[in-house]
């Protein structure tokens, strides 16, 4: 399984902080995004945001990055700390 985490507005708008996805269904971060987005109009709307960022195993990544069983992937908006 791939553990998928959501933060800030993304978490709030989806109404959940995490989900698990069968790794055999997706091979890249973009596949994972599309797989989740296809669930419903709400997921489509939140995950289609072009400002959405993705991290794989706690390092910032891009939409071509491979994902595999056991990975932790996070989707979140641009960061605003400091």
């Amino acid at each position, binding site marked *: 399984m791939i553990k998928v985490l959501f933060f*800030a507005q993304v978490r709030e708008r989806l109404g959940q902080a995490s989900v698990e996805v069968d790794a055999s269904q997706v091979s890249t971060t973009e596949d994972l995004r599309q797989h989740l987005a296809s669930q419903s109009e709400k997921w489509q709307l939140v995950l289609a945001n072009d400002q959405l960022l993705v991290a794989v195993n706690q*390092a*910032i990544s891009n939409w071509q990055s491979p994902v595999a069983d056991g990975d932790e992937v996070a989707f*979140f*908006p*641009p960061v*605003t*700390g*400091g």
Partner: protein
Amino acid sequence: MIRVQIQDFDITAEYNQLSGNNSAGAIVTFVGKVRDMNDGKPVSTLTLEHYPGMTEAVLQQIETEARERWPLLDVTIIHRVGPLELGDQIVYIGVSSAHRGAAFDACEYLIDFLKTRAPFWKLEGSEHEKHWVEAKDADQQRAEMWQE
């Protein structure tokens, strides 16, 4: 030293810790606070969310990059998370070096990259509503200046 914590920090204690190194001829510190207005809207509370694990890894990476760039002695980065109120301290950066140039530059570098790369998110609240703070192009531009 990197700390992500709910509780407040004591800048005197943090300063004394940096100051204890007798090779340090210069210490520069930065404190970020919750202010009363943002983008023209009144602010009374601020809640900080973060990505535990990735946050610490990114801050460590930024410190490593600063140390590759300048001859630094000690570096302290503290960032608070959870609910904060008007006037509260949010973030502390402290840097010591033999000379002031490196300390000034590294302190600014650390906060510029913390703001654009570390996974923290601010939820601002006023009497009537709460909203997530938008990332600012100006912060991105400041960080990009270091790469030129």
